[in-house]
């Protein structure tokens, strides 16, 4: 049967092209794969190959014709003994059966119910420990419980950890499960993602998150997106952890806070704990989670002590904020080391008669919007606090959500307290100015309270 040869689409965006040159003439025999024509698009001149075998019955479009629309018939291919005038087989593209168009998902006005609740039963025995010890205990407990959990990173083994988080783990678990890597973030992160596909639960320690920029391709393109791209067949059950944000006097390349960057990515979960109890409970949850989890720690916080429940298997669920301090006049929302400024400010403000409610987000993705909104609906004012850059910050995002879902409750615009919009300077005096300060938080709160 005669077949119509159609003007091909040769690029994702091509709608029409110029039939620059025919390389076959009527009556020619063509084989599949043989080049029949040259077609010019806005991008390039391309060769057009035959798909089917046959004889060129008729050339329908003369060479040199411009503006030939994709899918118009340009020639007729016939078989031996057939006439070109025989009705051609319809080979036009079949339109896909289109699924009904659903309305764009609009956030329905759902009731706002704070999820904040106690993380452990009243009367639980507590012990004092540092954030460092809490992180170590979380990893050790999970490694004892699940033989597929292993730790990989630079200096995590024999050196006992650049920040001593993994101290003692090599002794207990051996080099198979505490793997020292060369200084090759891109490579070992890819290897860890592959290992997660192969049935393991890797914990990747980045010496600091600044160096993970070399590996961000694998974190996002290979780990975060694979579950979606595979239609749910395979994800990356793993944890990426390490110290994040500014330490002290280490300059621009070693001081960035990545909270907002990673929180922007669907497919990742993002955790940034402040207290030791949260560090422990959330890291255990992260290791058990079947998704890639970004776990952002802070060097300055490693040595700080907190009360941690003395329970054999203590975890904290993702997506649940913690109200550190109840108040009535203003909501201060923060996370990670930002909580230090938030809590200090709340103390100072109390002396001035301002009652601040302080919310610790703890996980940034999923984010506990409802606890924030419930608090703002009560206090009618909000200040956000974080160390990261101001543009595209978590605070910016929260302001937008509060505006959309609690606009009528606001008595003042939301203010975002952040680090300054500059690379971190080295000089002591400049660094002090680049960083967020408690005084700035106090001033922001006074401003939204019109005081």
């Amino acid at each position, binding site marked *: 049967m005669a077949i119509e040869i*159609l003007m*091909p*689409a*040769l690029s*994702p965006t*091509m709608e029409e092209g110029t039939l620059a040159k025919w390389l076959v003439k009527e009556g020619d025999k063509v084989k*599949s*794969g043989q*080049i029949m024509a040259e077609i010019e*698009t806005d*991008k*390039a*001149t*391309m*060769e057009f190959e035959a*798909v089917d075998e046959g004889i060129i019955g008729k050339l329908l479009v003369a060479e040199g014709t411009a503006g030939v629309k*994709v*899918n118009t018939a340009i020639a007729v291919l016939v078989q031996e003994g057939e006439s070109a005038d025989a009705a051609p087989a319809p*080979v*036009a*593209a*079949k339109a*896909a*059966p289109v*699924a009904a168009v*659903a309305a764009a998902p609009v956030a329905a006005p759902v009731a706002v119910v704070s999820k904040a609740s106690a993380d452990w039963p009243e009367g639980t025995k507590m012990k004092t420990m540092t954030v460092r010890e809490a992180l170590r205990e979380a990893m050790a407990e999970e490694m004892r419980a699940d033989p597929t959990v292993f730790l990989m990173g630079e200096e995590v083994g024999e050196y006992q950890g650049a920040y001593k988080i993994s101290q003692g783990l090599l002794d207990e678990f051996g080099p*198979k499960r505490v793997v020292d890597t*060369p200084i*090759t973030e*891109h*490579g*070992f992160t*890819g*290897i*860890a*993602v*592959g*290992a*997660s*596909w*192969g*049935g*393991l639960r890797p914990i990747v320690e980045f010496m600091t998150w600044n160096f993970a920029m070399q590996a961000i*391709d*694998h974190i996002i*393109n*290979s780990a975060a997106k*694979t*579950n*979606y*791209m*595979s*239609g*749910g*067949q*395979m*994800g990356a*059950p793993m944890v990426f952890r390490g110290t994040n944000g500014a330490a002290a006097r280490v300059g621009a390349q070693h001081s960035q806070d990545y909270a907002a960057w990673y929180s922007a990515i*669907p497919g990742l979960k993002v955790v940034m704990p402040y207290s030791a109890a949260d560090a422990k409970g959330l890291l255990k949850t992260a290791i058990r989670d*079947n998704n890639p989890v970004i776990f952002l720690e802070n060097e300055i916080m490693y040595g700080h002590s907190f009360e941690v429940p003395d329970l054999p298997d203590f975890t904290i669920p993702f997506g649940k904020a913690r109200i550190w301090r109840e108040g009535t006049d203003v909501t201060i929302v923060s996370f990670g080391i930002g909580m230090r400024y938030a809590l200090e400010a709340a103390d100072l403000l109390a002396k001035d008669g301002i009652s601040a409610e302080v919310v610790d987000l703890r996980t940034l993705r999923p984010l506990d919007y409802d606890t924030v909104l419930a608090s703002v609906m009560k206090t009618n004012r909000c200040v956000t606090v974080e160390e990261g850059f101001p543009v595209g910050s978590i605070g910016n995002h929260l302001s937008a959500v509060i505006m959309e879902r609690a606009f009528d409750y606001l008595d003042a615009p939301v203010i975002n307290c952040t680090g300054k919009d500059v690379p971190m300077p080295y000089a002591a005096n400049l660094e002090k100015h680049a960083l967020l300060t408690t005084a700035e938080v106090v001033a922001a709160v006074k401003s939204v309270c019109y005081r």
Partner: protein
Amino acid sequence: MAPKKEPAKTNVSKDDLLHYYREMLLIRRFEEKAGQLYGMGLIGGFCHLYIGQEAVVVGLEACAKPGDKRLTSYRDHGHMLACGMDANGVMAELTGRSGGYSKGKGGSMHMFSKERHFYGGHGIVGAQVPLGAGLAFADKYLGNDNVTFAYFGDGAANQGQVYETYNMAELWNLPVVFVIENNQYAMGTSVKRSTKSTTLFGRGLAYGIQGEAVDGMDVLAVKAAGEKAVAACRAGEGPCILEMMTYRYRGHSMSDPAKYRTREEVEKMKTEKDAIEHVRDLLLGAGLASDEELKAIDKDIKEIVNASAEFAKDSPEPDLSELWTDIYA
């Protein structure tokens, strides 16, 4: 027609040769059909055809056992068919339909089959190299004797992450075969225009990894080299590099200006080195198969491929609710 290679001096069985013939032909016809569907607007975006390189994946798959893993770049249709994935599911993913391997959410470059141990389809040049070593890391950790085949191009061979991976794969003795599919071009850039160190497998020596160049247009040579590499991996001797000298007949993707090589160069490869013709000659030359037998295979393959195209056209687009599923496990 240009003179063909001398006829079979092979002790390969008829069954094996027929199997290679069939598998390579399936890939070629499938790819031709994909190109056609692209021209009809049924496949969108990028679509990288494997035509010309069929012997590489078919020869290496002949060395694999159940449990072995493989992953490659965006030029992945051939690898999927060769490891036993269903032509319908692959074609329907190309058309972005719910019957595709990723329910239409991955597309030509991002397809996976956990069941067939196919770990993608990777759109970022070089990414699959450490990922493949990671799969091998998991197998070694779990204590089985599986091997991972990590395929990548001559262009990808210049990525830094490849060398980070070589270093760790040898350091940790990982059971991974690094397969460089040297088709001589990375889009429009020839190997000579991208490096002075053109013996790509040789770069592994700096890390202690053995390797060799193989005639990637000869499925028997590929199989022989693959057997050695796989045996070494299974014996715990660590990784190997196989540099498959091959050639892609079609453009890099669908829109390719084709100005970086001459038409004569392409024609010469097609007429003198074609991998499918080679096996056909072996079969006919040694009297192992008749023209009729091969015609019957051709017909069979055509039916499979046409059926996959019909399936890929008829399978509905994914339900809009799928937009929000599979983001998290």
